[in-house]
């Protein structure tokens, strides 16, 4: 007979459970009841079926989806006795939702929570640049989604750099893998966009893209996120938190890059418009020159007329013209013009110039007595 202390007994039982219970082979499934979180870190609830009930204990940090009473769950962990109180419970490390109903319900709860926090706020959504040069692609390299995305980008655009961050996009490891890719891309940036894409699947298969951690990583991204998960009708929380949503991987490629044929046409149109504008300018320039030439001619004509009248004026000062009008010029014997009577003396010889010649003359008398 072996006698065990209480502590030894609890240890023995717990060791036995550990030895016989392999969580990779066995899971516990049931319906959640009396779900509660205590002190912001411990999760307690019951799982039950029609005939039995087991209490479940969990660390809040390990609970990566919202739970509520009535949900059907699958639990991975160990049965154990809590030494201090002797309470038997199932200590869960991981919870999976079972059935579309539970998933839908969990999704609705998480959506409401994140929406209230503003993670889907349309006002904070950034637009994508028109001509991205460098992008990060978070996808599974083996997936059809990856193939489709790359094919459409290749069809449409040239000269883009794509950094592929290979991610596990389904199953237990997917959330961590996708979060890791987004975080690494933050460090390796800058990127014009981070594209996250995955092909269609059941709600369960797409669940990584409804995972709270993944949604928060998308929300926190420094670079705009373009997400296209599943088909048109599936809208995951990642897509709601993303800046831009593509309905499919193909659609994501179309939203990311323009069609080069359209852009080539646009370049040609711009170039042609510029050429035409320049021609118009040249035409306008020619008109200005022509207008200026017309003006010069008009000015020249006026100038010519002004010069002609000036010439007439100048010619009126010509002494010949004066003589023609009947005046005479009187000079002394040295040829000096005698313009005043004071210079005339009786008996003085003078020369008189008239229109058609010169004659000699002698002064006979003084002023007043002449003639």
């Amino acid at each position: 007979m072996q006698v065990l202390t209480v502590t030894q007994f609890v240890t023995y039982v717990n060791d036995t459970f550990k030895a016989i219970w392999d969580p990779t082979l066995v899971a516990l499934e049931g319906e959640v009841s009396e779900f509660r979180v205590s002190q912001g870190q411990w999760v307690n609830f019951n799982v039950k079926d029609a005939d039995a009930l087991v209490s479940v204990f969990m660390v809040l940090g390990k609970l990566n989806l919202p739970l509520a009473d009535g949900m059907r769950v699958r639990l991975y962990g160990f049965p154990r006795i809590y030494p201090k109180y002797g309470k038997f419970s199932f200590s869960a490390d991981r919870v999976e939702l079972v059935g579309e109903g539970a998933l839908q319900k969990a999704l609705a709860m998480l959506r409401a929570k994140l929406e209230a926090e503003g993670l889907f706020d349309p006002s904070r959504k950034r637009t994508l640049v028109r001509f991205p040069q460098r992008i990060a692609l978070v996808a599974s390299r083996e997936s059809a989604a990856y193939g489709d995305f790359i094919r459409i980008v290749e069809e449409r655009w040239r000269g883009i750099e794509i950094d592929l961050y290979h991610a596990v996009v389904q199953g237990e490891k997917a959330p961590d893998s996708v979060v890791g890719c987004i975080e690494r891309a933050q460090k390796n940036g800058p990127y014009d966009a981070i594209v996250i894409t995955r092909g269609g699947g059941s709600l369960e298969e797409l669940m990584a893209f409804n995972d709270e951690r993944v949604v928060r990583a998308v929300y926190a991204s420094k670079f705009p996120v373009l997400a296209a998960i599943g088909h048109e009708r599936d809208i995951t929380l990642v897509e709601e938190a993303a800046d831009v949503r593509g309905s499919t991987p193909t659609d994501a490629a179309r939203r990311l890059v323009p069609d080069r044929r359209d852009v080539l046409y646009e370049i040609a149109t711009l170039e042609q418009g510029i050429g035409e504008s320049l021609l118009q300018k040249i035409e306008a320039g020619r008109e200005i020159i022509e207008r200026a030439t017309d003006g010069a001619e008009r000015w020249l004509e006026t100038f010519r007329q002004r010069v002609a009248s000036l010439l007439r004026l100048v010619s009126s000062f010509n002494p010949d013209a004066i003589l023609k009008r009947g005046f005479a010029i009187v000079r002394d014997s040295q040829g000096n013009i005698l313009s005043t009577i004071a210079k005339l003396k009786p008996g003085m010889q003078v020369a008189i110039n008239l229109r058609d010649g010169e004659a000699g003359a002698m002064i006979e008398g003084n002023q007043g007595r002449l003639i």
Partner: protein
Amino acid sequence: MAKKKLDIDFAKSFKELEDIASWFEEGEPDLDEGMKRYERASELAKGLKAKLDEAENRIKEIKNS
């Protein structure tokens, strides 16, 4: 050399081309400046077209280090 030519910032060049087009639309009467901008526009358009015709997309996997 061909590679060098393709090493343009597509977005920046495209924007510059658009800006030249709007300058012409605004109808500045400076013909000398117009000639200069027209030449620049032709050069830009040529570079952009070359990039769209000849450049390749580069895809590389970033391994988890």
